[in-house]
């Protein structure tokens, strides 16, 4: 159940973005309430990753406004946004090969009211403890994804921005990722999740935004999402 209390933790208004002359986002507006898991669904090239890059302050050409935790962060550089509590889990997982697993975890500064202590991270992800002194990229794909998630939890991010965390992973790992995201929500955390896996999306999320050709075309509740699953799958071309 969404626990939105009216004031969204994240609110995006009229967001447009370009690569050179090509416009890839057009006046996107969306809200995420505190304690919600919201997915962003859309086919390849719809602009999902670009949207997260705009939220993170990484996109070069963009316009619109972004509010986070009641403050306008539109003009903040990326590192200040992270310090406000945005936790970025990029689509390539963003694991450093020149850093050990533990260094990957402790690189970001601890921010927010409830950063996870390292001990708790290792309790939740025993595999990471075993491999703590390995170079980050020596982990398997699934383990790297866990590392990327664990990193933003250790950081204490208030809103997780996850770019297709389940992509290319085995059903077992996908299930584990679902468990972690649900656990995050139980603790009052919030997640904006990019997901192509409609089934997975409907099992973890409260609401869904459908993005097509750079626009939000629909906002769906979970029941609606389940009911229209086949139509959506077809639409996504999966």
């Amino acid at each position, binding site marked *: 159940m969404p626990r939105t209390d009216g004031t969204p933790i994240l609110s995006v208004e009229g967001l447009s973005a370009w690569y050179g002359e090509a416009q890839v986002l057009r006046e996107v507006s969306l809200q995420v309430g505190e304690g919600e898991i919201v997915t962003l669904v859309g086919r390849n090239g719809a602009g999902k990753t670009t949207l997260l890059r705009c939220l*993170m*302050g*990484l996109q070069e050409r963009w316009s619109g406004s972004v509010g986070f935790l009641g403050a306008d962060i539109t003009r903040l*550089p*990326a*590192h200040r*946004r*992270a*310090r406000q509590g945005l936790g*970025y889990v*990029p689509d390539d997982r*963003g694991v*450093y*090969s*020149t*850093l050990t697993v533990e*260094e990957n975890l402790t*690189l*970001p*500064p601890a*921010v927010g009211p409830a950063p996870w202590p390292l001990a708790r991270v290792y309790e939740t992800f025993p595999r990471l403890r075993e491999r703590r002194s390995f170079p980050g990229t020596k982990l398997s794909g699934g383990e790297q994804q866990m590392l990327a998630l664990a*990193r933003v939890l250790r*950081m204490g991010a208030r809103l997780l921005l996850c770019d297709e965390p389940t992509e290319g992973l085995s059903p077992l790992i996908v299930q584990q990722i679902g468990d972690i995201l649900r656990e995050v929500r139980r603790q009052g955390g919030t997640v904006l999740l990019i997901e192509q896996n409609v089934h997975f999306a409907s099992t973890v999320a409260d609401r869904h935004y459908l993005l097509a050709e750079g626009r939000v075309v629909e906002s769906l509740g979970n029941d609606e999402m389940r009911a229209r699953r086949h139509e959506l799958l077809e639409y996504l071309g999966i």
Partner: protein
Amino acid sequence: MLQQAFNGLVGGAFYALLALGLAVIFGMLGVVNFAHGAFYMLGAFGSYVLLDSFGVNFWIALVAVPVALGLAGTVLQRLFIRRLAPLDPLYNFLFTFGLALILQDLVKREYGVQSQPYPRPDLLAGTVDLGLFTYPAYQVFVLAVSVTLCLLVWLVLTRTRVGMIVRAATERPELTRALGIDVGRWVTPVFGFGIALAGLAGVLAAPMRAVNPLMGGDLIITVFAVVVIGGLGSIFGSVAAGFAIGLVSALGNLYVPALSQTLVFILMAAVLLWRPAGLFGREEALS
């Protein structure tokens, strides 16, 4: 042959110091610093001028010249390189390339192209008995300084939080910003540090190599090959390749003297065919 190998390591010491600076600068700023050789040359000229005009000895120059050049580097980065950074990388290419030519010609105008003499410091004028052969003390000193510095840098990079940040920002600058680290704050000191290393290599070179305006341009071509062989952006790779290339070209000189100038580039081509990202580079660094 052992002695030739030792010569190679001493030559490699210069490659390593220069390649190390180039690698951290390239990694963290995304700038290929074509002026690196010019700063090496300025290091040598700096110590020459200090001695010749002010009677300041080698030991003071060894500290003062790199510090001064490092500071100059930070100013250069703040005034120009930082402003060009958001544009196409070609702008900083052209800027550093032009700067190298300007610096070289300014020195040429003042001192001409002939080499200036620089005496070895008295303390290191003799030779050392290395067991199998005796070797000039000064060369041993150069090797020791270079190895010590590379080790120190390695310790700082691997054992400290600052080092961790530099490694992360060298590998993935954008991601590192998105994880809450103000990469911009580290960029200026890292650039200055890289320039200081080049200056230090220049000071070390003054007593054993010809001090002339072209010394940097000649050397830096080889150093670029070293950085490519080591793997663009790989700090460890550039140092290891520096010493290795020094060794290989000295031995090559002994056995196939005809190839001595081109050996490094043949090696580079071979390494690139075998591993396009360089020996220690990551494939994804190419994309």
